[in-house]
Structure formats: C-alpha cells, structure tokens
C-alpha cells in the first residue's frame, strides 16, 4: 500500500528535533502513520486517550514536569477540548495540537461538517493560534514554526491539516 501521508515522517523528525517526548492521540485515520512512528519511537511516550480533552490536561502536566508534548486529534474532537483549553490558556503554557480536518473538501459524511466548519472559530475563541496546511510541501515548515512559537512564546497553537491534504477519497469507505 502506498503511503497516503508522506509528511508524517517529517512531523516525526520534527518531534525528535524539538524534543517532544509525550504524544497523545485519539484514534484517527489521518494521523495513523504518525501515530505508528511515535509508538515505535523509544524516545516518545505515546498515550492513547479516551477523549480529546484528556490530552490537553496531559500536556499541561507534561509541561509542569519539564517535557514537551503534542496532541494528535481530529476536527470532530476540537469541541470536546473547549473548557480544558482554559488550563493552558490561563496558566500561559505551551500547547501543540495537530488537527486533521474533516467536514470540508470532498467530505461524504454530513455529520462531520458542523464541527469541521466551526473548528477554526472554536480554537481561536479559546485562545489558540491557528496555522493551516493545504499542501504536503508546506507541512514541515508550518509545523516547525508552529512548535517554535508554542515553546518559545508559550502559546497554544494548532496546525490544521486540511482534508485536501489528507485526501478525502481515502475516507469514503471509513467512518471515524
């Protein structure tokens, strides 16, 4: 099978170079390759969550413990995070979220559209700085800069990996 997300390796290399040692995730097809790379990396503790907001609190604890964390979620889970985002916001903690987008370009499941459409507004209203990537060539530079902003300026950042980038076709026989 060809690799549908060739940029996953680039993000994993950035995790290594930025010293990310805790990665948490919910099940997600778009992040599948990146999750596998993290799970097989002894330098990264990869934590599977039951719901996305657990990852916000986990990242806060990891920051308090002196580590860098990243959270891999899907746009449908962004709404679950709203109140928990108050924790890194009010404590001025760094937070890195990589969000695979659903409910946009080529979406076949109408239930994904509402949260996909409101994801940017929800994140910005919650104090998260947004970056969006539409092409594979832009993934590494965008994630690199977003993570630098998060650590160096202690900001909450989210990189939205667009459905155009992920390829809507690969989802047409899958549900979340």
């Amino acid at each position, binding site marked *: 099978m060809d690799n549908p997300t060739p940029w996953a390796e680039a993000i994993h290399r950035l995790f290594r170079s930025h010293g990310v040692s805790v990665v948490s995730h919910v099940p997600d097809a778009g992040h599948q390759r990146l999750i596998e790379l993290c799970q097989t990396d002894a330098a990264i503790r990869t934590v599977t969550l039951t719901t996305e907001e657990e990852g916000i609190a986990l990242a806060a*604890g990891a920051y*308090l413990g*002196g*580590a860098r964390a990243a959270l891999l979620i899907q746009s449908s889970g962004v709404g679950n995070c709203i109140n928990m985002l108050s*924790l890194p916001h009010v404590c001025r*903690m760094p937070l890195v979220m990589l969000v695979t987008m659903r409910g946009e370009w080529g979406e076949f499941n109408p239930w994904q559209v509402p949260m996909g459409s409101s994801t940017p507004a929800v994140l910005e209203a919650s104090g998260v700085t947004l970056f969006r990537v539409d092409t594979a060539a832009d993934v590494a530079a965008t994630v690199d800069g977003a993570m630098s902003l998060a650590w160096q300026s202690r900001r909450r950042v989210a990189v939205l990996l667009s459905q155009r980038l992920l390829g809507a076709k690969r989802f047409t026989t899958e549900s979340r």
Partner: protein
Amino acid sequence: MTADSNRPDGGTDRSHGAPRPTLPRRDVVRRLLTDRGSLIVVTGLGASAYDVAAAGDAPLDFPLWGAMGGAAMVGLGLALTQPSHPVVVVTGDGEMLMGLGSLATIGVERPANLRIVVLDNERFGETGNQRTHTASGVDLAAAARACGIADARTIDTIDEVERLRADLHDSTGPLLAVIKIGADPEPKALPPRDGPFLAHRLRSALLGQARGLEA
C-alpha cells in the same frame, strides 16, 4: 420492577439508610500530607484545593481552579515526566466522575508513581450539596480496578488514612483511594490562583529557576 431498582443502590438513598460517611476532610488531608517530602500534589477545583491549601500551600502544589475533570490527567502528565517524584492527585468525587475516562487511560499507562485520592462526600459541595452518583452507590474504586488500577480501595477509618499516607510515598504501582468524608462545609482556605505563578513555581521547584522559565 421500578425504575429505581435499576440504580446501583437499588433506589435507596444512603443518606437516609446507612450512616453517612464522616471522616473530617481537613484532618484527612493534613495527615496525608504530613512530612510530604518530594510529593507533588495536583488538586481538583473547589474544596479539595482548599483542603490542600489549609494543610500548607507549597511549591510542589498545583491547585486547579477550573478544568473540571482534568486533575487526574494533569497528574498523569507529571507522573510520566517526573518518575522520581510520587505524584498525588487530590480531588473530589464530582471532579473524578467528570473525568472517568481518564481512569481507563491511567489504567493502561500504569505509572508507578501516580496516586489518586478522591475525597468522597457524595455531594457537589461547591454548588449546593447536590447528590453525586457516589451517593447512589457508584463505586469509583471498583471502576478504577476494572480499568486496570489494581490497588484501588475505599477508606472510612483514620487507621486506613495513616496506611495510605505511607503508601503515597512507598507504593510501587499506581493507586486510587476513595476516602469517605463528611459533607460538612469547612472554612475556605484559598491557594494562589494566578496560573503563570503556579506553573512557574512548580517548574522552578522541579527543574530549577532557569529551566523553569523555558518551555
């Protein structure tokens, strides 16, 4: 069959049947934190945070003032990244119920240095003493065991509290203790609530002043 007979307690209200739990929460927390050494303490919002503050606010404390349901996961993040420190989450039954899924996540990760202490008065004490699910028999210790936290206990005597105090330091695996406490209100004892101050204070205590300021 009545609807109530489907409830875990068969529809009886323990507050009108079996005696209500009565361990004094301030005394319990003070005992648990006596000679606390290197214990890191994360609290849930509300009365649990006040109990820990009343025992003596400390640099290794991180009281939450919001983020309800997140205390155990903040504790997990600290436990995974500070394995040489015992990390104690002190929270209430309502806060733990809101983050029930985190027990499953912790049961999978099983950090040896994480302890969760649930101060269970079977009430939402901050908001008018409404009954929580534990008042109807929902058993948080059993839930924790079912999630893979093998050492999960329910405590209602001071002797057991003293044993728990030792286990907070010496246990070699994750544990969860539900302590049945009285529902009488205590005077407020407020910990600091400035987020950057609390975060920097804890990071500096763990990592040193210079690294504490750097992400």
